């Protein structure tokens, strides 16, 4: 149906016409067929839609309302919402923008009021200002200030007028003169300290600007300075050592295992178990006489030093040894009465004699080690707790013993004879002293940085000395070089128990509680200008740690590059090349 566009004009203006108005394009909207009252009445009865047919006067037609229109009218009549499905109280769904509120809820421009000074507040302020201007308030403020001033000291005045402390910083005249003489670059202070009688008289530091400038200049020029980075090949720092393969022979592998001892054994030589001696107490150290022509061994058992002979060996060396130790033999034939306090040699008991023990010498305290002179006539035994008689020197041929020291210099740990000179090296807990036995005086004192020396060995050449210590250090001393170690090797992980030089070959070894033996090549040059060459060669393993003890002692074969090691596990191992 076209829309009537006549606007808000009275409809009776069109009463006399056939049309009731005009549509959007200006064509006439024709009036519908007029029905008279009778027809309307009849139609009201006949037409089932008559009750919902209304006359649209504007367009001049009858309109039949639909069911929805009727329902809508009904809802309006009951003052309900026009829409049937409209929910006036919907469930509130709070919404949130996942990435912040980017859109304002309302696009309305901000109000003007927040930008305008509040008249209400202006009134309040004006009221306060008027109150503060009042004479009464001014008076109360002045009174309060007076009161506070009375109670509070004048700190400012106090500080400013106090003379500064620190007269020690002031220069004495000599210092001032020295400062004047010094080059400005060398002066430790860039100014002369001066005294002022009040802080407020202290002037501003006059070098401030210059110092700031120089500091800024430093920072500014700093990046332009050429950086000298250390560019060193790490391999070049390692010493140039020959390869161990070139230094053969040395002990490389385990060859034999001599088992059979129960308990700890400290030093043994080669072979099948030819003989077992039961000496009645804990054997701490055993050494063969180094002179091949006399077969005698010395053992330290408890407080005694025993001299043993090999049994049933009618070989010349054994015969000579036996003859030397016969009761009437040697040069001691008709010796006079022993002097007061001298150490007496005595014949052992019958059962010890049947074990081959020829003589015994008693220490005061329990002895721990024994060492021979290379000629085989003298030997020394050590009892660390024996104070002034800790070291005893024994002479085999004259059958005499004596203590070389009048008083103790500390706990003696080990002694060794010098192979070429009449010197005795005595290792106490911290130091090694070398005594000249001929002139009876101290020849040299060595200072290893070790905490507790355990063993020492003298190089067969005589100019070098090896020290092992319980704090894992192995120190090589060159006696011609200095009193401090030439090299300190810290390769063991636990305490070193024993060190030994090979009597002929340039080898030495150290035994440790970590159950390993380290073998080194140690070549000494006869040329005085070149230092000894030390090359680590091999770590020999095979022992087991028993009650925190590993390898107790080592001994080299006199001619072969073979090493014997005695372990706390009761076995003796032989390593050969």
């Amino acid at each position, binding site marked *: 149906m076209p829309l009537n566009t006549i606007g808000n004009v009275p409809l009776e203006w069109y009463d006399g016409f056939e049309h009731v108005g005009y549509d959007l394009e200006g064509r006439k909207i024709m009036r519908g067929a007029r029905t008279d009252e009778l027809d309307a009445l009849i139609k009201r009865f006949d037409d089932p839609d008559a009750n919902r047919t209304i006359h649209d006067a504007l367009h001049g037609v009858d309109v039949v309302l639909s069911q929805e229109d009727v329902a809508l009218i009904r809802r309006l009549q009951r003052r309900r919402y026009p829409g049937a499905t409209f929910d006036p109280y919907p469930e509130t769904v709070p919404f949130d923008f996942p990435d912040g509120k980017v859109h304002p809820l309302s696009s309305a421009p901000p109000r003007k009021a927040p930008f305008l000074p509040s008249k209400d507040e202006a009134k309040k302020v004006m009221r306060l200002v008027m109150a503060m201007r009042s004479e009464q308030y001014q008076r109360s403020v002045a009174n309060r200030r007076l009161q506070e001033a009375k109670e509070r000291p004048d700190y400012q005045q106090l500080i400013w007028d106090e003379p500064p402390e620190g007269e020690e910083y002031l220069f004495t005249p000599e210092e001032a003169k020295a400062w004047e003489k010094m080059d400005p670059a060398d002066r430790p202070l860039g100014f002369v300290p001066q005294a002022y009688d009040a802080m407020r008289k202290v002037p501003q530091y006059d070098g401030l600007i210059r110092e700031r400038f120089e500091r800024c200049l430093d920072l500014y020029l700093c990046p332009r300075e050429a950086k000298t980075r250390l560019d060193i090949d790490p391999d070049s720092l390692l010493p140039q050592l020959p390869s161990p393969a070139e230094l053969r022979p040395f002990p490389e592998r385990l*060859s034999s295992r001599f088992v059979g001892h129960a308990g700890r054994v400290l030093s043994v030589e080669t072979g099948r178990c030819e003989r077992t001696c039961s000496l009645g107490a804990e054997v701490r150290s055993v050494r063969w006489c180094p002179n091949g022509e006399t077969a005698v061994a010395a053992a330290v058992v408890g407080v005694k030093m025993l001299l043993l002979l090999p049994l049933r*060996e009618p070989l010349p060396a054994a015969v000579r040894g036996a003859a030397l130790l016969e009761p009437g033999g040697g040069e001691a034939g008709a010796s006079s009465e022993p002097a007061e306090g001298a150490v007496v040699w005595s014949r052992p008991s019958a059962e010890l004699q049947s074990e081959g023990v020829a003589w015994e010498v008693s220490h005061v305290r329990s002895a721990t080690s024994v060492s021979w002179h290379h000629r085989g006539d003298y030997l020394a035994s050590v009892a660390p707790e024996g104070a002034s008689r800790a070291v005893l020197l024994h002479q085999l041929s004259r059958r005499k013993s004596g203590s070389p020291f009048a008083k103790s210099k500390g706990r003696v740990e080990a002694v060794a004879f010098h192979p070429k000179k009449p010197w005795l090296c005595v290792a106490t807990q911290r130091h090694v002293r070398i005594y000249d036995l001929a002139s009876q005086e101290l020849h040299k004192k060595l200072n290893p940085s070790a905490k507790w020396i355990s063993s020492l060995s003298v190089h067969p050449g005589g100019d070098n000395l090896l020290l092992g210590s319980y704090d894992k250090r192995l120190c090589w001393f060159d006696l011609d070089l200095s009193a401090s170690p030439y090299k300190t090797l810290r390769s063991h992980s636990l305490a070193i128990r024993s060190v030994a030089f090979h009597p002929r070959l340039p080898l030495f070894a150290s035994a440790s509680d970590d159950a390993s033996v380290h073998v080194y090549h140690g070549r000494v040059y006869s040329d005085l200008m070149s230092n000894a060459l030390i090359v680590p060669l091999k770590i020999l393993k095979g022992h087991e740690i028993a009650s925190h003890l590993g390898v107790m002692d080592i001994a080299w074969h006199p001619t*072969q*590059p073979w090493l014997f090691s005695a372990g706390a596990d009761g076995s003796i191992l032989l390593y050969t090349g």
Partner: protein
Amino acid sequence: MSQGQASEPHTSVRFTTKLEPRWVVSDTPLDLPTRLSRYGLSEVVNHLLGASPARPFDFLLDGELLRGSLGKALAARGLSGESTITLEYIELLAPPQPRGEALVPDWISSLALAAPGSSVASSNPVLSGCYDGAAYLWDASGVQAAALGGGEGAAAVKAVAWLGERPVVASKDGAVRVWAAGGSAGGAAQLSCVGHHAAVACLAAAPAADSLATGGWDRSILLFRPPADGVPAASSEPPPSKRARGGASAVTAAVAPEELAAAAQLCGHTDCVSALAWPTAALLYSASWDGTVREWDAAVGAATATLSSSGKAALCLDVSLSPATVATGHSDHQLRLWDARSRGGAPTGAIPHHGWVSSVAWCGVREHLLVSGCHDGGVRLWDTRSPRVALHSLPRHKGKALCVAWDGADAVVSGGTDGQLRISTLAA
């Protein structure tokens, strides 16, 4: 032939042999898979021969025994397998059979076997020295026949040898005693060779059985010329060489052996002389702990050659004449082979062991074959053409094997620290 076999590598092989003609196969090259090892190749040859009882063979490639597969051997030599290779086959040595064993009360230090053909060889050919101070005679199956010396306080026997038919026993106290033929002279030795002032370590008799060489810890080698059996010593020896030990020996002159001084002393070693071998009348070989092996002219008494092994102590020595090879056992767990004719120089071969090589003996009749005793207890039979894998292992000793001996034919005897004397024979 299945697909899988077709793709595996093959090589062309020609078989040759020096065996008698009925074992010879045609020299036509065969195409064989390289996975074949000795057993497979032996089956192939047997198949070609059509031998009804299969005969095992061993194969030589470039003069070395084939161990492992053919492919591995080719790879080790850098051969591609495209060219024809020549394999020589030889008779396979059967494993030795144990013939007897005996137990002695202490360690067995040394062994000697009488050469076949002598009268003792048929009766009691095995002579063993023991650490209890006695030497024992055994028959060929390990039954004890006699004990020489020993008793309370006797020094351990370190070396024994047969001087013709007379046993010679050297002990740790430096004494060298010669007993009557066959060890039958009752309780006392016939001759006592004096001169060593330290323990004796080794002993060798000349092949003509007229001389004796001893070496020991005094670093010298002494040569003795004992008179022939039955001839009194006084007739052949000048009076000053006889030294009576004292009045006691004069009283018991009927029992005490005659003393015999050394005819010559060979000096040159700087450590214990550990082994001696006297293969021909002129040449004496000695090994020492100083690492050298020396060849001496026994008549002149001078060293003629020195073989050096860079300071590794030599513990045992044996000389084979047919390839003129010296075998020495060393403390660095190696058995070294030297060409005796080269007069010095490097060893021609080395056989690694698992411990000190304490003893070595050549077979004698079969070249390339030797037996070694090792401190790990093993006694092994080696072919010099197979330096890595032993031919056979003889029964092990508990503890260390200390001595082995070969009688020059088929019997091998070994002794060790378990006191066991084991006799084995090789199949003919």
